[in-house]
């Protein structure tokens, strides 16, 4: 079977310090996969390795079966790997619709077209409208992102990533800093994602993880401790020791 995203024996060392130690991980097509681990487990480094912010010291990253380890961040995006950011990285001076339009136009490779009038492109408008409706953002279409609430901005962050029509969506702590009701909204939204998108979510909010993920990988000290269903992870004594015990006591 082919995996949407496959990581083989990935290593990363900063000087003598090994931060990622021989990590292997597979995200099946259409999977809802979560990556958890205590602070300092190396989650951020792993995200950076997958998205291309950092170059691995060893190992392979495969997207849809082909290696992407040497590609730039932008090229990985083009191959169908989209991500959200821990800290919002949006276009604050532009409207929500424009934010989404930017991603769609970029994805279509139409961003350098000098003659197409964006407001006279019904197909584009329809796509944006549909996209925003699905993400419950239709009401905010004409508002500047900088005027939205933090929770709404987090959702726009997801909307931007999804507008790139990714095969794999990497969500980097999407619930960070969200109020409880916003987390519910986010969860609804994530559950409604189409099966064509495989999701890898890195999250601290255990409640969200266990309600959303089908598969969970636990990372400790730069190593994979365990990969399994939520049930298996919940029951595992080692996980309780290193992680759940400490946090959920």
């Amino acid at each position, binding site marked *: 079977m082919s995996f949407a995203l496959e990581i083989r024996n990935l290593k990363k060392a900063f000087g003598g310090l090994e931060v990622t130690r021989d990590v292997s991980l597979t995200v099946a097509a259409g999977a809802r996969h979560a990556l958890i681990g205590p602070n300092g487990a190396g989650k951020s480094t792993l995200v950076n390795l997958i998205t291309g912010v950092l170059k691995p010291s060893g190992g392979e990253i495969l997207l849809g079966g082909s290696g992407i380890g040497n590609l730039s*961040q932008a090229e990985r995006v083009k191959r169908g790997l989209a991500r959200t950011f821990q800290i919002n990285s949006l276009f*604050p001076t532009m409207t929500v619709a424009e934010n989404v339009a930017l991603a769609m*136009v970029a994805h279509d490779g139409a961003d350098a*077209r000098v003659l197409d009038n964006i407001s006279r492109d019904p197909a584009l*408008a329809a796509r944006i409208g*549909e996209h925003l409706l699905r993400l419950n953002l239709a009401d905010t279409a004409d508002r500047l992102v900088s005027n939205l609430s933090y929770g709404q901005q987090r959702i726009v962050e997801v909307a931007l990533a999804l507008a790139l029509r990714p095969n794999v969506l990497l969500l980097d702590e999407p619930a960070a800093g969200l109020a409880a009701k916003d987390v519910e909204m986010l969860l609804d939204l994530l559950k409604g994602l189409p099966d064509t998108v495989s999701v890898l979510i890195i999250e601290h909010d255990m409640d969200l993880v266990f309600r959303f993920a089908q598969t969970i990988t636990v990372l400790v000290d730069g190593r994979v401790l365990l990969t399994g269903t939520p049930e298996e992870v919940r029951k595992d004594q080692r996980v309780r020791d290193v992680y759940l015990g400490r946090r959920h006591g």
Partner: protein
Amino acid sequence: MRKPENTIGTSVPEMRSALRTHRFGWFEIVMLVVFVAVYYLLPGYLPLATQVAIMIIFAISLDLALGYGGIETLGHAVFYGIGGYAAGLYALHVWQEPISGLLVAAIAAGIFGIVSGVVVLRAKGLTLVMLTLACATMVHEFANSMRAVTGGDDGLSGYRIDPVFGLFRFDLFGRTAYIYSVCILVVVFLIARVVANSNFGLTARGIRSNAQRMQLLGVPVLNRLVLLYAISGALAGIAGALSAQVTKLVGLNTLAFTLSGNVLIVLILGGIGRLYGAVIGSIVFVVLSDRAAAIDPFNWLFILGGLIVLTVWLAPDGIAGRFSALTQQLRGRERKS
């Protein structure tokens, strides 16, 4: 392909206002009326009005680079000057036909935009400001030292310009020059408008808003900025060429820091990223300096300096920004009541 008339199609009109583009409105109509009215009612002011039109073109070109792409430049005169010299040299050595002269100038300035853009636009912020300044100063000094070609400090002169379309001679009263400049202004405005409203214009605004994120959307930011810089440069070149054709002389002042500074003042005075800010700013700036200089030439720098300081103080988004903020407030009030 989805069709706009499916269920989701109901949101199509909504998107039109959410994707902000330049729309023709009363402003353009008023401007056209003003330009026509000036011709008939103020024939003695046509040379001044021609300078206004040229400045508008120049400011619009800067607005594309700065207002849309966020390219912070303190050396935009380099394109104006290159356009001017290109048009002058073309008329002197090749052909005196004016419209082809404008095209040659636009191409020359555009090519310089690509070449210098590839080099300069890697930088950001203050470094970019300084690089554009250094680049313009360098070309200024170069033109100064290439006396044999450019005439150095004495300016490039001695060329003729043929009648426009072989019909309209550049007359003493500046009528042809005025109509010609205003027509070119309309064309340039339309070009700038197409660019601003296009996918590419959206991309440029995205880059201005968050260049890093654009890169991560898979957009080659540097390439796009270079393209924008080249388009902007070409339009600025047209402004310079117009000035060269109307004045029949190109001086080193077309490349000077003062001009770069002034066009920036014009644009920020009017308001950036709106196209029509360039129009308002140019009218205010050129007319005011002309009047102030006529009334009190010895002290008009006081007026100019004071005006700039006050504008930034009271209307940091420029006159156009102030205005749209006001109309928005009014609209908001209407909605509430």
